[in-house]
């Protein structure tokens, strides 16, 4: 009966049964109607030793190609410092539950406090929660916050230039929750701000969410937008890439009330889609409407500085159906990831990441235009990601690149293709990409 994860010997089992006063383990299940008892074998493989398991995973791994990535679309192949996985594997961190007992959870509580501090520094917001699942669900929760704050207004405007996956998830959430969503159309690769102003006139708008950078990598100009939104007593939300906030104007500097986004760009492995890190931060005045856990600093009985989960009366385990959200587990260990990443990089490192990525992206952009086979589309400022038009057959080109171990640009249809360059790409890789595309 005993297994490496189930320690019971036959002797243990009989001693325990005797104490309980039953004759067999089956007797502990005697209350279950026999018609629902599962009498077959599970249809799963037989137990594997570690040797066999490793071999199985190696076999699966051999069916994956790790590529030189020039695709982005919300997920970027940024550099991950070696230190981080080592610290994340401290099992006092990763085998702990949510820090419900502060006396023995100061490690988790303190890093969440540091995480909150860093996210607030980047966004310029006054407060933030302990994390959300991903950027898209953080945007969805931003919608709920806007509607909850506005009380009677039930419409949220979403820019059509938000990343596609963010729009999709936000709309699903809004549809079920009963929030009206209006998409602000796109014009020349940016949010149509005139259309936004028109939509704000409907009188029932609780908030607006705008992207920075947008789904095409374009850095939009939101001058005056905060005033437009606030003039109808709506909230301004921004969906941002936190990595870029070392150089780009922050949500607070744009006058936003809520900032959300995905922390994957803070050096997190792409890991086929997760785990990443959703974040949500806001003005202090909105704190009671904010979903999720929050850590606050306080002191213990002897005056020592310490940290606790706070403002819990907003949460599901207390408010049940009146909670601000149903979220419990978030992405805590990924918040630690981001915290360590930001500690290592600091403001200067994050800036350098942006400079290297942007210089690489602009180098690629110029090389592509020079070939004569690619043309500019939007002529607008960008950092690490941009769209170009081409007369090449994008599908054929990408298939050829794949053969050569390269993930090409994202095919947007209509002969448009979107490339992303991070600090991990080298000049040689970029030159090689251009050469391969032309020979495809």
């Amino acid at each position, binding site marked *: 009966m005993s297994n490496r994860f189930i320690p019971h010997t036959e002797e243990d089992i009989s001693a325990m049964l005797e104490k309980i006063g039953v004759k067999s383990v089956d007797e502990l299940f005697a209350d279950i109607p026999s018609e629902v008892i599962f009498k077959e074998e599970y249809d799963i493989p037989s137990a594997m030793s570690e040797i066999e398991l490793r071999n199985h995973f190696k076999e699966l791994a051999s069916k994956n190609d790790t590529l030189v990535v020039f695709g982005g679309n919300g997920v970027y192949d940024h550099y991950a410092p070696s230190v981080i996985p080592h610290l994340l594997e401290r099992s006092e961190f990763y085998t702990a539950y949510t820090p419900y007992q502060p006396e023995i959870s100061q490690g988790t509580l303190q890093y969440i406090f540091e995480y909150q501090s860093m996210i607030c520094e980047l966004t310029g917001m006054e407060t933030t929660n302990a994390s959300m699942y991903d950027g898209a*669900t953080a945007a969805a929760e931003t919608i709920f916050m806007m509607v909850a704050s506005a009380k009677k207004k039930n419409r949220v405007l979403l820019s059509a230039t938000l990343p596609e996956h963010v729009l999709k998830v936000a709309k699903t959430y809004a549809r079920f929750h009963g929030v009206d969503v209006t998409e602000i159309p796109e014009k020349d690769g940016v949010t149509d701000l005139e259309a936004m102003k028109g939509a704000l006139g409907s009188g029932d708008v609780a908030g607006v969410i705008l992207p920075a950078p947008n789904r095409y990598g374009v850095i939009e100009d939101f001058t005056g937008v905060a005033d437009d939104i606030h003039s109808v007593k709506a909230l301004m939300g921004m969906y941002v890439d936190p990595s870029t906030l070392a150089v780009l104007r922050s949500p607070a500097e744009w006058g936003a009330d809520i900032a959300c986004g995905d922390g994957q760009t803070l050096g997190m492995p792409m890991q086929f889609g997760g785990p990443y890190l959703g974040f949500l931060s806001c003005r202090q005045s909105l704190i009671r409407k904010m979903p999720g856990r929050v850590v606050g600093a306080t002191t213990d009985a002897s005056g020592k500085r310490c940290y606790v989960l706070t403002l819990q009366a907003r949460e599901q385990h207390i408010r049940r159906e009146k909670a601000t959200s149903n979220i419990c*587990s978030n992405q*805590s260990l990924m918040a630690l990831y981001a915290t360590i990443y930001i500690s290592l990089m600091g403001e200067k490192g994050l800036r350098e990441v942006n400079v290297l990525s942007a210089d690489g992206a602009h180098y690629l952009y110029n090389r592509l235009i020079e070939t004569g086979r690619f043309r500019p589309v939007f002529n607008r400022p960008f950092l690490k990601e941009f769209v170009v038009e081409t007369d090449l057959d994008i599908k054929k080109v990408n298939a050829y690149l794949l053969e050569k171990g390269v993930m090409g640009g994202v095919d947007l249809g209509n002969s448009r293709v979107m490339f992303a360059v991070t600090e991990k790409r080298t000049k040689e890789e970029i030159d090689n990409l251009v050469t391969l595309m032309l020979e495809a």
Partner: protein
Amino acid sequence: MKYYDKLIFELSRPGRKGYELPADNYGCDALKEIPADLLRKDAPELPEVSELDVVRHYTNLSSKNFGVDTGFYPLGSCTMKYNPKINEEVAAMPEFAGLHPLQPAESAQGALELYYNLQKALANIAGLAEFTLNPYAGAHGELTGLMVMRQYHISRGDEKRRKVIVPDSAHGTNPASAMVAGLEVIEVKSKPNGSIDVEDLKPLLDDTVAGIMMTNPNTLGMFETEIMEIAKLVHEAGGLLYYDGANLNPMLGKVRPGDMGFDIMHINLHKTFSTPHGGGGPGSGPVGVAAHLVDLLPNPRVKKGEDGKFYVENGDKSLGSISSFLGNFGVMMKAYAYILSLGKENLKNVGPMATLNANYIKESLKDDYLLPIEGACKHEFVFDGLKDKSTGVTTLNVAKRLLDYGFHAPTIYFPLLFHESMMIEPTETESKETLDEFIEVMHKVAKEARENPDMVKNAPHTTLISHPDETTAAKKPILTYRQMKG
């Protein structure tokens, strides 16, 4: 060890750094081409520290934490089982960690096969047709499952079914998830033994009911023996049954939710399938459904073609997307490794041994602690505080005293059915020796409560910090270093 209480910000020294990046040889200055209005004016104040500063700081912080690897963690409803190390090893394999979620399916066949196999294994274990692994956590799974429930009624043109029945003993997430999904919560009462009162349920079942959310065993650790009757009644009334998989662990090897009549369920991979809780995530909350609901599952879906190749599909009957991509893939890898490590021979022992452990503790402690409901529990059980109420020692006091003895506290003050709830879940990975130590300490605390109640009331005495002032923390929130500096 010396008490360490620095913040990373307080280690910062201007000019210090903890990174090195390659030189910029592109010969351009892209930032110059961006209009100044679009650039940041006030730089963020972030730490400037060396690599060693970072390593020591977070290593020191880790030592202020208690995890499953530190000691016994009988936190009820959280299934704090051992997190096998091989899980961590395989999840870190670069051939998976380096995969872009949008790279062509043909270049990620290994990852897609893993997703597909895990989905199939869970479907078999649950007795349901298919799973989506996209939801990120248990609560996210609940929300997704309830969206499936509503989408089912909407797809039949039955828009008026907006009510979901939830027992008063349910996890707090159940009503909260229902609220997010746009459903109205109707509470059904529990009988004195904690199970659903079928007579109370019957009048609630009209044509506005979308379904019922249940966990079985319930939050008292007791099996709902009338489940087949409940399933029949709900189905006859046109509703669906949702199974909250938070309490699935004791059912492994014994009962499959699908066989009890459930149509939709979520599983917490970070409970039943051994992936670590990570101090509050990342988890994973796969959702399984019966055959008639499969097309409603969220996009994207992973499928296997007739040629044996795996592909990603966005179905047009789907309720939509609930995640950016395919969920917390790294967490799925760990659960998959766990299922293969146990295999069909051992997975079926999980439920029985978890149940044996829980009953052993319950029977060993019921002379000192008040057991409100007799009979065989499943993976967990609830005491209503100490039996001897004369000392004034509360469940909170006992929980804090346990910390002094090197154990994590049980879940306390949940479920709400009792005033002094203390919910204990040992899981199957704990040995009899560990349980015996815990039992001995619990007896000792009961004795201390009789002999020196003030000492117990002032516990803990040996932890790094004593009672934190939570009132001030909530009244005047300090949530960032900037606010702390004032």
